[in-house]
């Protein structure tokens, strides 16, 4: 007895690999006997191949790297606190040791903390990936730019590219063939 014909949905599920093994085997067996169903399966397979082409040619948007503002704010608050603390230290030490001769030379200038923070900023640009869906591409883009990524579970430094070729040292610059 000829089994029921394929529906487009069933063919689609087969192509996507979503059918249970026994259903897939039954579908395959049917397409060997029924030419219209074989043609339907071929159409779905063809569509699948075309969609691969569509996906590979689709222009990818550059991932949006947005600064992790709350983290920046925290850095700013930290810098302000450090400045205030150093100012307090200067005033305190100035008040207590006003008669000491070396009191003028030892305190750190209040602006130094601010300078340090400013100098440190370019090295610690923190970006946050918008959501889980684009996290992989976002992280990759951040990695290429050498940025820090704010992961949902904390800040992590993106590993830098280390240019390991797997070749022995000096193999690339050698003038003669190098035995591997």
């Amino acid at each position, binding site marked *: 007895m000829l089994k029921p014909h394929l529906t487009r949905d069933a063919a689609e599920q087969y192509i996507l690999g979503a059918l249970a*093994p026994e259903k897939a085997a039954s579908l395959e067996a049917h397409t*060997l006997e029924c030419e219209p169903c074989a043609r339907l399966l*071929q159409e779905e397979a063809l*569509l699948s*191949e*075309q969609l691969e082409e*569509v996906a590979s040619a689709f222009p990818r948007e550059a991932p949006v790297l947005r600064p992790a503002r709350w983290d920046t704010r925290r850095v700013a608050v930290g810098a302000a606190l450090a400045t205030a603390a150093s100012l307090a230290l200067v005033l305190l030490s100035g008040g207590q040791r006003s008669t000491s001769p070396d009191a003028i030379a030892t305190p750190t200038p209040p602006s130094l903390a601010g300078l340090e923070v400013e100098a440190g900023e370019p090295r610690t640009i923190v970006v946050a990936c918008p959501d*889980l869906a*684009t996290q992989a591409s976002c992280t990759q883009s951040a990695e290429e730019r050498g940025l820090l990524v704010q992961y949902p579970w904390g800040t992590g430094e993106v590993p830098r590219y280390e240019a390991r070729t797997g070749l022995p040292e000096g193999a690339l610059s050698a003038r003669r063939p190098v035995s591997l």
Partner: protein
Amino acid sequence: MSAAVQGLRMTTLRLSKEADEPAEATAPGGDEALLSRRALAGDRAAWDVLVARHHRRVVVSLLARGVRVDRAQELAQETWARLIQQQQRGLLTELRLPNLALTQAAFLAADDARRARRESITGAVDELPERHHPVDPSVSAERRLLSEEQLSRAHAALAQVSPSARNVFLLACDGQELPHAEVASRVGLSVQRVRQILCEVRKKLRTALEEEPHA
């Protein structure tokens, strides 16, 4: 030769296991380069993972060329056997999957069609390959290429779907051959939902591709 055949049997066994547990045997797509290097070095386990990951795509590409489903399975197996043999003979310098496997499979399919045609010349009309193949593979090879207009229509349709659905589609179809379980874990959805989204996007894109071109 025997080692290659033995390797293929191992791969076949792994494939049947993979059909039951699709999420387990496939690692995230990021390790593709590492797996390829290991496979080039002759690591059997790496070959098994790569074959499990790309086998379906090879079969689908053969089906799209009009090869019967049983023959498509055989040719896909032969494709992997050839690649493993080439690696064992040191003929493979790099392994870019799935493209290399797709090319090998296309070559085998064309060879198969040529042989069938040659044999049918002396046979009866009923045994002509056209009786068995819904479409001549050499013809469908040209049909596979999308026109610029079709491509732009499909891109316009894809741009209209929701960003999350588009992302699911691009993750599943961008050639990395990520299993649906991996796509689901990346986007934080269930496998069932991912498949549902893929079916919805396929329907929209099918409609876009089948639209009559404007005069």
